């Protein structure tokens, strides 16, 4: 569960004010709105990687999958298991899950390829898997479908439905179909330049 209280973010030329949104566990909440309306900024604030005014109550661990995939200079596989590795978890317990997800997203052929030489769709899928493999309490996805093909979007939809019951999921998106398929709650942002 996440609560915003009077959150606003100040940039040099604009102040973005947010309504007091709440995001519930077990639900998928979509954030929509035109370019520059502050979707990415809100997710970054919730992930606590950007300075903000006001309060954000967070329960549990929050992870953020950015709009542009930022993979480390490692292979796709090493990227996916990174969160498990740093938590010193036993990878063998996760092997079945990893294998299933990797098949789902058709990453099996490039699993041991250097991530930075993969296509942007492939990188995005790896980045999403890296974000969900360790089952964070809060999952923030910033426009996850923009680089994905139709089949991958379908698989992502199924996957999110499967894992959502124990998570708070917040997704920013312009993708009407994707939103219709998944949304429990939809928040629309307006133009911050007023």
């Amino acid at each position: 569960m996440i609560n915003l209280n009077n959150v606003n973010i100040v940039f040099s030329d604009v102040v973005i004010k947010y309504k007091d949104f709440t995001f519930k566990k077990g639900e998928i909440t979509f954030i929509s709105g035109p370019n520059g309306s502050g979707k990415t900024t809100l997710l970054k604030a919730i992930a606590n990687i950007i300075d903000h005014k006001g309060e954000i109550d967070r329960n549990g661990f929050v992870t953020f999958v950015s709009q542009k995939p930022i993979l480390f200079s490692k292979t796709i596989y090493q990227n996916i298991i990174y969160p498990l590795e740093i938590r010193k978890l036993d990878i063998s317990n996760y092997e079945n899950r990893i294998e299933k997800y990797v098949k789902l997203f058709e990453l099996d052929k490039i699993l041991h390829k250097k991530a930075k030489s993969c296509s942007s769709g492939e990188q995005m899928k790896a980045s999403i898997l890296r974000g969900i493999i360790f089952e964070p309490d809060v999952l923030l996805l910033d426009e996850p479908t923009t680089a994905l093909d139709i089949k991958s979007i379908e698989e992502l939809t199924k996957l999110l439905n499967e894992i959502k019951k124990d998570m708070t999921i917040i997704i920013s998106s312009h993708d009407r179909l994707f939103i219709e398929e998944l949304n429990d709650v939809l928040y629309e942002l307006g133009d911050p330049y007023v």
Partner: protein
Amino acid sequence: MIQESIVEAFNLLMSFDEEIYQIIFLSLTLALLATLTALVFGVFFGILISSTTFKGKRFVKKLIFTFMGIPPVVLGLFVLLLTIGPLDPVFNLFTVQVMFFAQFLLVLPIITGNIIISSEKTQKEVLETAETLGASRMDKVKLLIVETKPFILMSMILGFSRAISEVGAVMLVGGNIRYSTRTMTTYIARSNSMGDYSKSIAMGIILLILAFVIHSILARFRGDFYD
């Protein structure tokens, strides 16, 4: 003239004159050791400076960038003053040790500055991403080293080139003493001022060939460094 010098270069090498080989050996080891030592400190400082925020960071960066272009002779003068001053107990003038120190100082800002310039933006993104995946401080440091790897080799090449080619610093603090502190560049400078042009061009050619060989060896590692 050039033709003569090429013959002379060949003769110099083939004469197996011990002095020539000593000079070449000293130049190479000096430049290599100075670069490797500066690499250790430079990578450390570079990562530290670019991945943290602190008061006066902009100033520190400007200072480093300024020292990247300092004329070696000015740096040599500075080390000379240090050596006869506060560092008197540590170094003696006209020794190999103080030459090493001068070249180290010359190369350090080049490596530090290059690491900062080349990795600052990626580091911010990588650190943020690592943060949201739950990385500890130590995990982040490890990641930064991995992400900085491609830039390490590049800064090493630049640093080595600077060290092997400079005259001013080694001349001032080393004194160009025969059989002791004479390097390839000070040999060239000396032969030149004595009017022995073909000797200096010959040594210049040897210097270029050696630099070419070393960069070729380094280039072989590039594949490992770049993804």
